C-alpha cells in the first residue's frame, strides 16, 4: 500500500497512523535478517503517530501527515544517530536537522529509522557498510543494490511508505531498480543538501524511494525548493506536480533511446525488457529515435575521477578531533593518520587514495583536468538531446541483481554497475527509475527516464503514464 491510499483510508476512518506505525515496526522486527536499518526510532515514531491521528481527527492533517518514512543514514537527524555506515561515525549524533528532515517534520512525516548504506555512500551493492551487508528481500543471497540499499529495501519490504536516499552516481536509481520501487533523483540543486554528509558535492543529490508516482510527487514537493543554508540550491519555484496524465498527448512526445553501441554491456534479460517497452511506446504513437553519446566508454572513468577527487577533499574533515572515532594512540602515532586508517573501510580508503592521486602534482591535468572537460561534453550532449527530445529512455542497470560477494573484490566491475546512471549526475539532469519488467529469477528490472533540467513535473507525469501502459 502506498501513502496516498493510506491517507484516504485514514480520512475515511478505516485506518490509523498508530496502527500502521505498529505494523511497520513489526515488519522491521520480523525482517532484521535483511539488515536494512542501522538505528530505529520506534518510540518517537509512535509518539508522533498519535499526534498525527489527532490532527486527522481534528480535520487538520498536514501535507505528509502520518507518512511513515525511512531516512538514509547520511542525512542528519537531530538527536538521532547518523553513522554514514562507517566506524568513524559509529557514535555520532547530529546536533541539527538536515533541511529535508526539517521540512518533513513540519509536514507531518514520521521518521521510523535510519537506513543502512554503503560506507559514505561509496558502493553499488550495499556490502561496504561497517554495519554489515543489506540483503535483497526476495533472495538474501543477492544484493539490493547501493549505496542507498537499506532505503530501497525498507520501501520494498513493507517497513515504511517511503524513504529518502542520496544519489551521487546512481545510488538511488540502481537499488530502486533492483528492489522494484520508484527511485527519483531530481535536478542538481532542486533539493537542499544542507545536512547531507558530503561525498562528491557537485554530484550529490537527495531523492526519494516510493511505491507510487503520487507518493514520489507528494514527497518531492515538500522537500524541494531553495534553501538559504545551501547556496547551490536552485532559486526556481517548485510547481505542483499535477498528476494529470490526460494532459500528455503521446503523439506529440519525442523520446530519445540508446543505440546498440551504448547497450553492448547489457545482459539479455535487461535488453529484452528494454526492447519490449520500446515496442509498447511506439504502439502508443510516441516517436522514438536513437541518439549517440560520444565517448560513452569514458563516462564511468570521468565519474570516478570527479567523484573521488571531491571525496578526498570532503572526507579530510574526519580527523578524530571534534567528533567521531578517535584511535588509541601509542608513542609516535599521529592522531589523524591512525584515526582515519582505523576508522575508514577498504572502499572508502581506495576512493580517497584515487581522489588524492588524480589531484596530486603532476597528475592533475592528465586526470582531473581531463575529466572536467569530458564532463562538459556530457553536459552539452544532454542539452543537445533535450533540445530535440522530451525524454531519454534507457535501462537503469546493465544487469539484474548480482550475488553478494560476486563483485566485492573487483572494484572496476562494481563501478560498471553505474554505467547508465552516473551521466545524469555529471550532467545534473533529473532522472527516475521505474519498475517495468522482471528477470527470469523474478527480480524486478528497472528502466530509467531522464529529462531536461528542472522538468521534474513533466518527468513524473510521463513516468506515471509509462507505469500505466
Amino acid at each position, binding site marked *: 500500500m502506498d501513502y496516498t491510499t493510506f491517507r484516504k483510508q485514514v480520512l475515511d476512518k478505516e485506518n490509523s497512523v498508530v496502527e500502521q506505525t505498529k505494523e511497520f515496526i513489526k515488519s522491521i522486527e520480523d525482517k532484521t535478517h535483511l539488515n536494512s536499518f542501522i538505528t530505529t526510532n520506534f518510540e518517537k515514531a509512535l509518539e508522533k503517530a498519535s499526534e498525527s491521528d489527532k490532527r486527522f481527527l481534528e480535520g487538520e492533517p498536514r501535507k505528509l501527515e502520518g507518512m511513515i518514512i525511512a531516512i538514509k543514514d547520511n542525512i542528519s537527524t537531530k538527536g538521532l544517530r547518523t553513522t554514514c555506515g562507517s566506524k568513524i561515525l559509529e557514535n555520532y549524533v547530529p546536533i541539527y536537522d538536515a533541511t529535508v528532515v526539517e521540512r518533513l517534520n513540519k509536514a507531518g512525516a514520521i521518521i521510523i529509522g535510519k537506513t543502512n548504506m554503503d560506507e559514505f555512500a561509496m558502493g553499488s551493492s550495499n556490502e561496504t557498510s561497517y554495519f554489515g551487508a543489506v540483503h535483497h528481500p526476495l533472495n538474501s543471497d543477492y544484493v539490493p543494490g547501493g549505496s542507498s540499499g537499506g532505503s530501497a529495501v525498507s520501501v520494498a519490504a513493507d517497513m515504511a511508505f517511503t524513504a529518502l536516499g542520496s544519489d551521487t552516481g546512481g545510488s538511488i536509481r540502481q537499488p530502486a531498480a533492483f528492489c522494484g520501487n520508484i527511485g527519483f533523483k531530481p535536478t542538481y540543486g532542486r533539493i537542499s543538501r544542507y545536512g547531507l554528509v558530503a561525498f562528491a558535492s557537485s554530484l550529490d543529490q537527495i531523492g526519494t524511494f516510493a511505491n507510487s508516482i503520487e507518493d514520489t510527487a507528494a514527497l518531492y514537493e515538500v522537500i524541494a525548493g531553495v534553501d538559504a543554508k545551501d547556496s547551490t540550491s536552485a532559486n526556481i519555484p517548485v510547481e505542483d506536480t499535477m498528476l494529470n496524465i490526460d494532459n500528455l498527448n503521446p503523439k506529440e512526445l519525442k523520446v530519445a533511446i540508446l543505440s546498440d553501441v551504448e547497450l553492448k554491456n547489457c545482459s539479455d534479460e535487461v535488453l529484452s525488457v528494454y526492447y519490449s517497452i520500446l515496442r509498447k511506446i511506439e504502439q502508443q504513437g510516441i516517436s522514438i529515435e536513437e541518439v549517440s553519446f560520444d565517448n560513452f566508454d569514458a563516462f564511468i572513468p570521468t565519474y570516478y575521477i570527479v567523484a573521488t577527487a571531491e571525496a578526498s577533499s570532503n572526507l579530510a574533515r574526519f580527523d578524530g578531533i571534534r567528533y567521531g572515532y578517535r584511535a588509541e594512540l601509542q608513542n609516535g602515532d599521529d592522531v589523524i593518520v591512525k584515526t582515519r586508517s582505523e576508522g575508514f573501510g577498504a572502499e572508502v580508503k581506495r576512493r580517497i587514495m584515487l581522489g588524492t592521486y588524480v589531484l596530486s602534482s603532476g597528475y592533475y591535468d592528465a586526470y582531473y583536468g581531463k575529466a*572536467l572537460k569530458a564532463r562538459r561534453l556530457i553536459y552539452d550532449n544532454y542539452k543537445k538531446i533535450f533540445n530535440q527530445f522530451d525524454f531519454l529512455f534507457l535501462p537503469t542497470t546493465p544487469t539484474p541483481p548480482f550475488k553478494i560477494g560476486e563483485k566485492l573484490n573487483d572494484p572496476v566491475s562494481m563501478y560498471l554497475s553505474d554505467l547508465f546512471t552516473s551521466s545524469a549526475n555529471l550532467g545534473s539532469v533529473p532522472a527516475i527509475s521505474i519498475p517495468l519488467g522482471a528477470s527470469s529469477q523474478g527480480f524486478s528490472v528497472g528502466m530509467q527516464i531522464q529529462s531536461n533540467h528542472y522538468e521534474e513535473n513533466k518527468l513524473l507525469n510521463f513516468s506515471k503514464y509509462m507505469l500505466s501502459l
Partner: protein
Amino acid sequence: MDTKAIKHIAELAHLKFKDEEIESFAIQFSGIINYVSSVEKLSLERIEPLTRPFEAQNVVRQDMAQSSIPKEDALLNAPKRNEMFFKVPKVIE
C-alpha cells in the same frame, strides 16, 4: 604503481597501510588507475572544463548577527573534552 608511490599518496591522504596490505593494494589500485586513465586518450582541445553543475551566481544574505551553536552542543560529539575545550594529544614538548 609500486609500493613507494602508494606510500607517497597515502601520506598526502593522511592514511597509512600496513606493510602486509600494501602490496595487494598496489595491484588493485594499479588496475583502477589503468581503467580511469582512458580519459587521457580523449581529444578535448579547446573544451572548457565544467567546474560546477549549475549557473554560477553569488548568493548573499543580509549582514545580520545570528546565534551560533551553543558551546555545550558543539562539544557533545567530542571524543575527548573538558568543560570548555576539545582535548587533543600533546603536540609540543
